């Protein structure tokens, strides 16, 4: 029974979570990896997923944590073995790439709060809770992130 419920959740939530995680990571490929991995972990622990107050939020939190862990690892690895570290794959040929590149230029902490607040529609308190931050820190990052992203978009994409 739980598999059917998770399959329904997968059908309903996958693309929404993917969009949110593209915002968090700045990379479609990275987002695909972590969202799929979050569902795999949900299948691994179905009761934890299905008993959660909001299963989609559970998946989002797992995916965000995976993204943060992978990002830290990747940062550590880039300097050590640059020839082996995967470059971001981009297959887009339209303006979406520019937007994603602007997003990627934000510091990771700011990108996370921007994505969760403006793409996942979480309140600042929910964003802080998801990221394990004090609410004040979440607010400060959101404010700085908005300013930085607006500046980037105006400077690099005046047509947007």
């Amino acid at each position, binding site marked *: 029974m739980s598999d059917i419920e998770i399959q329904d959740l*997968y059908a309903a939530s996958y693309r929404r979570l993917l*969009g949110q995680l593209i915002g968090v990571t700045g990379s479609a490929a990275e987002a695909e990896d972590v969202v799929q991995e979050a569902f795999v972990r949900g299948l691994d622990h179905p009761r934890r997923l299905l008993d959660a107050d909001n299963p989609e939020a559970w998946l989002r939190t797992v995916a965000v944590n995976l993204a943060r862990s992978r990002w830290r690892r990747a940062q550590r690895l880039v300097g050590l073995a640059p020839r082996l570290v995967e470059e971001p794959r981009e297959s887009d040929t339209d303006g979406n790439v520019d937007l994603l590149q602007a997003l990627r230029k934000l510091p990771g902490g700011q990108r996370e709060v921007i994505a969760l607040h403006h*793409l996942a529609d979480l309140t600042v308190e929910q964003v802080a809770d998801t990221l394990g931050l004090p609410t004040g820190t979440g607010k400060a990052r959101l404010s700085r992130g908005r300013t930085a992203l607006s500046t980037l978009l105006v400077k690099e994409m005046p047509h947007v």
Partner: protein
Amino acid sequence: MSEFTPLREAVDAVASRSVPPDFAELKRRATRRGRRRVVIAAAAGAAAFLAVGGGLAAGSLRGSDQPLWVGEPATPSSESPTVQESAEPPASPYALGKALDTILEKAPGWTINDGPVGDGYDYAFNGPCSGNWTEGATSGADGAAPGRWGGMGIAGFPTAAQASDAAARFVENLKSCTSTEWRTQPIARTGAVLAFSADAVAWIQRTDDTVDVLQVRTNDGAPPVGVQVEVAEWMVAYRTWQEQN
């Protein structure tokens, strides 16, 4: 329209072009993960056993090169309370590093070289003898190994078969190298390969789609077989811990 509307539209557009994998594929991945976790828990339990009880066992090994003094790490005896009580996998990089140190430091008649690194030291993972073994890798890195000793490199591949081919290519490249004389041999029961030179010993372990290489400096050649096995099992435990954390 919010200033973030274009951003939302952009990520939605990119997300909508993504083809999600079939749900059955995710289930297969979860099933494989579950199976592997069972094996790894047993191997990690053996590593924890070593950390706790290795001193006693090492005492009985003085002057001996006998392998398999740990027993069968993959299937700890249910009649052994020591193993059962110690069967929790190490829960942190620190604990994993300590477990590796314990394995390496208690090897009878075999010592780690902790002196200065010579100019010609060959770090196999990406040294002059490694060749193009990581061709096709989609991820990778190297750096200090957990614990006090050695370096560790990792290369991830799209499939287990490609990882297996790459590991074989790596071993062949080392064997045929002339700048450093590397000798290689399989490690009993583990599927891993040991490579050793006059200055170092390297373990090459494939786990699923990943190849890990752990290298330690020594002038003593290959360590006792029991240590070879334990380090190979430790590498599998470490790989699984990394994937789950």
